[in-house]
């Protein structure tokens, strides 16, 4: 039962990803794309979790946490870029 559900869920997430990809490509603004990318990252995390169940292995559970971290870093970088154009400031107090 679980396997079937997982496969259904996988397809759902994949469909969601394609939809998000449409947003990434279409835009129309940059923030739109980044929002979609961020959501895409979240979907990937979900997918990894589902694949873990599907393969019945805990080998990839590290990936989940790691990807959570990285998606965050990526989003921060993008938003800083959008806002300031430079993502690492030399000295923000000056």
């Amino acid at each position, binding site marked *: 039962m679980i396997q079937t559900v997982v496969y259904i869920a996988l397809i759902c997430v994949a469909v969601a990803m394609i939809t998000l990809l449409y947003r990434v490509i279409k835009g129309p603004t940059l923030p739109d794309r980044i929002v979609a990318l961020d959501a895409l990252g979240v979907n990937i995390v979900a997918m990894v979790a589902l694949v873990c169940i599907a393969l019945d292995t805990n080998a990839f559970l590290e990936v989940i946490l790691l990807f959570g971290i990285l998606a965050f*870093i990526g989003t*921060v970088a993008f938003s*800083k870029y959008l806002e300031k154009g430079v*993502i*690492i*400031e030399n000295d923000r107090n000056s």
Partner: protein
Amino acid sequence: MKTSDLILQTATKLILFLIVLFSVYIFFAGHYTPGGGFVGGLLTSGAILLLLLAFDMKTVQTILPFNYLYMVALGLLFAIGTGAGALLFNTPFLTHAFGDIHVPVLGELHLHTATLFDLGVYLVVVGVTMSIIQTIGGDE
């Protein structure tokens, strides 16, 4: 206009600890579960990168006053040294040794020279990533 990144900074302070801990875990667990020097090192640099994003170069430099190029060289020396240790025993370069040592209080301690090698990898990866980011970020 200047904006304050208070939310980000606060969150970063919280999360940073988590990331570093996780990276250390991933580094040490590498021989048994997925991970290792590469990922560990990269993740550590990811943490520092986050720090850089949330704060700025100057602040980070005061917190972590490393010369990252030296760190690279040090890491390489570690890796080479692990390999060259084998030269002393006239075994082929990079031959690893491992064994369990019984330490009275801690119990069985699993020791592996591969960990030293991986430490070299870790140092190099952190050093490289950070020196790249720092050099580019510091370029006006």
